[in-house]
């Protein structure tokens, strides 16, 4: 049923214009992020040309595209795959170890008192500084790179999951205890589901950290991967290529971030904040 509203009478031809204007505004509003990016690229391009900035300092977008095209597709895919492989392995390891560890920490005072300080120490250590040591210890291959990625992604997952598990409403735990269910079921049926929003916010942050971890590792020791490619290109002053690789990295991060969000949306729609449902 339509509720009566008070509106001023309008003539029909006067109504057409505001409608079109509104449609245009809507398009502008939808496309605002895209338009802003395009405008920025345009300013960048024009600025570089106007002030004749040398491409080894700041390449124009067109130079970056050229740089990207100067490398074979096969070579690109090889580097992307190397970075992705390391990122996802380190990330998966962090999830597989981090979440059960968080459950243990949240449920045991002894564990949280003994293990948690160690985790904080690990987290406080600059991973970039430790990376060369890890490479020496773990030798060549993916292992040291996966380890470095793991170390970077692991901590946010543990901390956020513990926070989520401990945020379970006490009334819910009381319900669970009143039913006399096992501790394991309590974790599985009550605590973990309540932690899902926390876990996913950590998973989103960590997946972008995983890319950073892989790149850091590739800076230290690697013969492929986008991080390696950037280090390699800049050492030969092929800055446009390096920028192109940077663009690929950003895209990769964004895609992974969105994939994690999509997973939450598909598997746990109830865990989304009301505004996003």
């Amino acid at each position, binding site marked *: 049923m339509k509720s009566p509203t008070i509106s001023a009478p309008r003539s029909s031809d006067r109504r057409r214009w505001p409608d079109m204007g509104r449609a245009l505004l809507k398009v502008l509003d939808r496309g605002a992020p895209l338009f802003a990016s395009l405008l920025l690229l345009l300013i960048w391009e024009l600025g570089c040309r106007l002030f004749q900035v040398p491409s080894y300092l700041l390449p124009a977008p067109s130079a970056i595209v050229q740089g990207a095209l100067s490398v074979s597709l096969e070579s690109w895919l090889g580097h992307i795959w190397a970075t992705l492989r390391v990122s996802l392995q380190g990330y998966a390891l962090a999830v597989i170890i981090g979440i059960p560890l968080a459950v243990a920490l949240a449920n045991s005072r002894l564990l949280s008192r003994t293990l948690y300080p160690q985790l904080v120490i690990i987290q406080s250590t600059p991973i970039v500084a430790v990376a060369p040591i890890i490479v020496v210890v773990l030798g060549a291959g993916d292992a040291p790179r996966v380890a470095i990625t793991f170390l970077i992604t692991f901590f946010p997952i543990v901390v956020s999951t513990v926070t989520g598990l401990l945020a379970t*409403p006490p*009334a*819910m735990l*009381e*319900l*669970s*205890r*009143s*039913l*006399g*269910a096992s501790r394991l*079921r309590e974790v599985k*049926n*009550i605590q973990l*589901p309540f932690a*899902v929003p926390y876990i996913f916010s950590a998973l989103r942050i960590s997946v972008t950290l995983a890319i950073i971890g892989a790149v850091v590792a590739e800076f230290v020791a690697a013969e492929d991967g986008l991080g390696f490619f950037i280090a390699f290109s800049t050492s030969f002053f092929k800055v446009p290529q390096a920028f192109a690789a940077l663009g690929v990295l950003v895209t990769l991060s964004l895609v992974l971030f969105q994939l994690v969000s999509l997973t939450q949306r598909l598997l*746990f729609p*109830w*865990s989304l904040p009301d505004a996003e449902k």
Partner: protein
Amino acid sequence: MTTRIEPDGSRPAIRFDRVGQVFNGSDGGSVTALEDVSFTLHRHEFVAVIGPSGCGKSTLLRIIAGLVKPTGGQAEIYGLPVTGPREEVGIVFQQPTLLPWLNVRDNVTFPMKHKHGRVTQAEKQRAAELLAMVGLEDFATRRPNELSGGMQQRVGIARALLHDPDILLMDEPFSALDALTRDEMSFELLRIWTERPKTVLFITHSIPEALLLADRILVMSARPGRVREIIDVGLARPRSMQTLSEPRFHEIANHIRAQVFRPAALA
């Protein structure tokens, strides 16, 4: 969890024996929630507990539910000291405590899923009946956040009744309901209780509700919670809307009102 024991008619269903409860507050001080509470519920008796906010009513319920160990005295069910949650007890909590990721039907069967890992066909059937009873059959597949507070509370009631508990503990179950639904639910509860007799401990803030439902009313004093008076309601059963207009109803109601609002010093 202790195993289900056979209720024994000769023993009181619930007994509080000089129960006391002192909580240590986060600021270092301590709160005496309950002091020297002694009270007995006979088998299949309906007892309402009434008292000012914060006098320890919920704490009393938690103690008999085996969720809190009293710091003094002892609580017993069928003559055995309560050491933990028990199978024959059903609880309706003060908050609805529904799981937001389960739909209404799965929330009702959740106790079975949680305890035994699975839900039988018979339990599903019973859940459907209970949902119809609380007027929510059309909402079985909705999520709790799509329900009003009163509807959520009704789901909680259906959940507590699922395993047909011999002892039912209810903590202000109708406080989120509007007056009309409240009366309706009260009569519904009386019907269930008559059909399948249970020992009921029913916490409420509403004097008319207590009078309408209970055999006896336990009136508690403000902190520290003590037994101020135990009132035999003595209104004929089955009770109906007419009960509300009986002279004795108003007589007791006024008496309780005076009791609850009387300062503790004069008690």
